């Protein structure tokens, strides 16, 4: 498969009465976009705010972050099976509005986490402080259930990102990146001497607020399967996950999967990137056994020499992670896993809920229990009262001056387990 990714660099977002991209500025016709989103009968209101890097602004609680994209050439459309019709994506040409994102907020449940600080010490820990963000505050109609609420916000974010992405359709990209992958046979012929490497991408799939969708399929109802790396760049995988702010994979992460990017970078040079095996993190133990059996079986089927495994979430996904690692290693496939740690505030506790000597090559996104002090911001967007709940209990404290002392785990994307960040621990 061959995908051309044309990046249009965005350096500002302005709200106005006409939606367009001009000289690197994204103009958003708020009324038009709002009308589109309010077609969803579960939503009562949607408000918009624009935040820029360096501003004294705090956004919370963040549900998802989505990068606007549009399919310009080739089969299918972005977010297949959800926004676009089901159709295999990942080839042709896609345009991206680079440097900006849609950020959805919404208090789906009372204890939701997820802070993005656009400046100050908190900003160092979230990649989204470096983007120009269109923040959408979505309010549901009275009386809808949590799962309807989650669905409504998820769809609003995807629709808005699609609407904005559409503005890039006819633009000339500032920069074009070309990704090309081979089939199993042709890859072997092309790179006979390079080690065959696959990527086992674990997707959160435990149920309400913990779900991931692939081509519209709820991943907990799927067996592990194989994707071409470029499919993720067109939105084949999207996040329905609202909990575990620091180590959940937002849709932005899936679109810009760093493992896929780095493996493609090495593809044909030091390794042969054979494909992506997606698997789930289910609650039922038999599912865990079956899925890890299958991810290993698929890896063997692809005759991999090595595999990278990335995780999402903490606690019982540690079990899936270790099962995957153990079984891959037992099958003779050299494995590196990416995770994060819950080693306690003092860093002295056991970091993972599961462990095995086979996991001898681990990359960590850092200790999520580290305490961080987030100074007061001039402006708080979203549901400021959520700060009370996030900060009020065990995880931290809201100081009288509006600053927050909390664990790193409240910051969106802080200890990402795809290795999106530079944060680590020793």
């Amino acid at each position, binding site marked *: 498969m061959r995908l051309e990714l044309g990046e249009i660099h965005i350096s500002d977002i302005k709200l106005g009465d006409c939606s367009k991209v001009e000289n690197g500025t994204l103009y958003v016709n708020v009324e038009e976009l709002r009308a589109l989103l309010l077609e969803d009968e579960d939503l009562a209101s949607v408000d918009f705010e624009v935040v820029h890097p360096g501003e004294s602004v705090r956004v919370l609680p963040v549900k998802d972050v989505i990068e606007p994209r549009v399919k310009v050439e080739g089969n299918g459309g972005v977010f297949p099976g959800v926004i676009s019709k089901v159709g295999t994506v990942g080839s042709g040409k896609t345009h991206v509005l680079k440097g900006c994102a849609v950020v959805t907020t919404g208090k789906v449940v009372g204890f939701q986490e997820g802070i993005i600080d656009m400046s100050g010490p908190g900003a*160092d820990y979230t990649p989204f402080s470096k983007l120009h963000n269109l923040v959408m505050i979505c309010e549901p109609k009275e009386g809808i259930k949590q799962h309807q609420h989650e669905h409504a916000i998820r769809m609003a974010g995807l629709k808005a990102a699609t609407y904005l992405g559409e503005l890039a359709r006819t633009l000339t990209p500032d920069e074009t990146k070309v990704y090309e992958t081979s089939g199993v046979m042709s890859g072997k012929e092309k790179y006979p001497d390079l*080690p065959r*490497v696959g990527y086992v991408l674990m997707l959160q799939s435990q149920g309400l607020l913990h779900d991931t969708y692939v081509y519209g399929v709820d991943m907990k109802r799927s067996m592990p399967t194989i994707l071409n790396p470029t499919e993720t760049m067109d939105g084949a995988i999207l996040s329905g996950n609202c909990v575990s702010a620091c180590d959940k994979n937002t849709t932005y992460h899936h679109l810009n999967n*760093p*493992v896929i*990017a*780095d*493996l493609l970078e*090495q593809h044909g040079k*030091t*390794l042969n990137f054979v494909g992506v095996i997606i698997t789930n993190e289910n609650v039922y133990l038999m599912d865990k056994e079956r899925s890890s059996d299958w991810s290993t079986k698929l890896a063997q089927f692809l005759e991999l*020499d*090595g*595999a*990278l495994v*990335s995780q999402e979430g903490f606690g019982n996904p540690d079990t899936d992670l270790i099962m995957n690692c153990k079984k891959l290693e037992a099958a003779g496939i*050299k*494995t*590196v896993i*990416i*995770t994060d*740690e819950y*080693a306690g505030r*003092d*860093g*002295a506790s*056991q*970091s*993972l809920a599961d*462990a*095995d*000597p086979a*996991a*001898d*090559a*681990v*990359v*960590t*996104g*850092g*200790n999520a229990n*580290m305490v961080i002090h987030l100074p007061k911001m001039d402006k708080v967007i979203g549901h400021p009262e959520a700060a009370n709940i996030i900060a009020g209990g065990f995880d931290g404290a809201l100081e009288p001056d509006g600053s927050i002392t909390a664990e*790193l785990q409240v910051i969106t994307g802080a200890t*990402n387990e*795809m*290795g*999106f*960040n*530079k*944060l*680590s*621990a*020793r």
Partner: protein
Amino acid sequence: MSFRVVHYINQFFAQIGGEEKADYAPEYREGAVGPGLALNTAFKGEAEIVGTVICGDSYFNENLDAAKATVLKMISDAKPDVVICGPAFNAGRYGVACGTVAAAVKDELGLPVVTGMYEENPGADMFKNKVYIIATKNNAAGMRQAAPKMAALALKLAKGEKVGASAEEGYMPNGLRVNFFEAERGSTRAVKMLLNKLAGKPYTTEFPMPSFDRVAPGPAITDLAHTTIALVTSGGIVPKGNPDHIESSSASKFGRYDISSFEDLTAADHETAHGGYDPVYANEDADRVLPVDVLRKMEKEGKIGGIYPYFFTTVGNGTAVASAKKYGEAIGKELRDAGIKAAILTST
């Protein structure tokens, strides 16, 4: 203002002599001696070695308590802001002395301290979780790399600044996980690690899995009929009422109780303090965890020589490995001192 540093070194690095001078008694000298000069350079004027304590390695290890006290007093009298020991590189007794002095400076004088040695130096395993040990090369040629790291960490500690992760500062991992920013993102590090693993090249995991060492099996007991057996349990059996209040989990102590007068444990006299399993069955009959009744019978039948008058009890539940190790050491010492050759350890 420049920080006052006291430096601890051995007779060899003080250029007094080698093995033949290893019994050299502690001596205090004003100013820097030997490797201290390299440290002074590395301080770049921010700190200065005001005095050096020199002690022979044999002297230190053979007169441990007295030597430690003398050395500590010399250090303390020089009123340092921070103390540096070594580096000891791969010299085993020197490494143990550096670790011992450093730990005592930290615990007894309450002063910041840095030492350095090669990772396979026995002093490293003994002290890396207690004091900051800069990892050095295995010989003195590594001084050039070690001095700036030791000086930088010592300055940080003297200033009361936050100490970064082991990988940043160069000290040996001490069991405390510390966050820091790497030069590359995680995915890039992971790809590099995988390429090394695939090529059979060395790589370092960022999170080592908990590891377990082994002990060689004890010898077989040939004369059981004349052997006294000690009873140990991690099942939390205690005299009724748990007189020492042993915690049900993460216990901070172990129990040691007289069973010399018991033929049989019953619900009237023993119970379990363990919070890690359903206590109903052990409370009904503690012999189900600690088989005193059958051992008494075997004693009478002459199958065993006897039962050690005290049994030892811990709660396995949630007890940190380090504590369990400490309890095991204490129990082992008592049994060895009492000449006991055999123990049954029961676990739930």
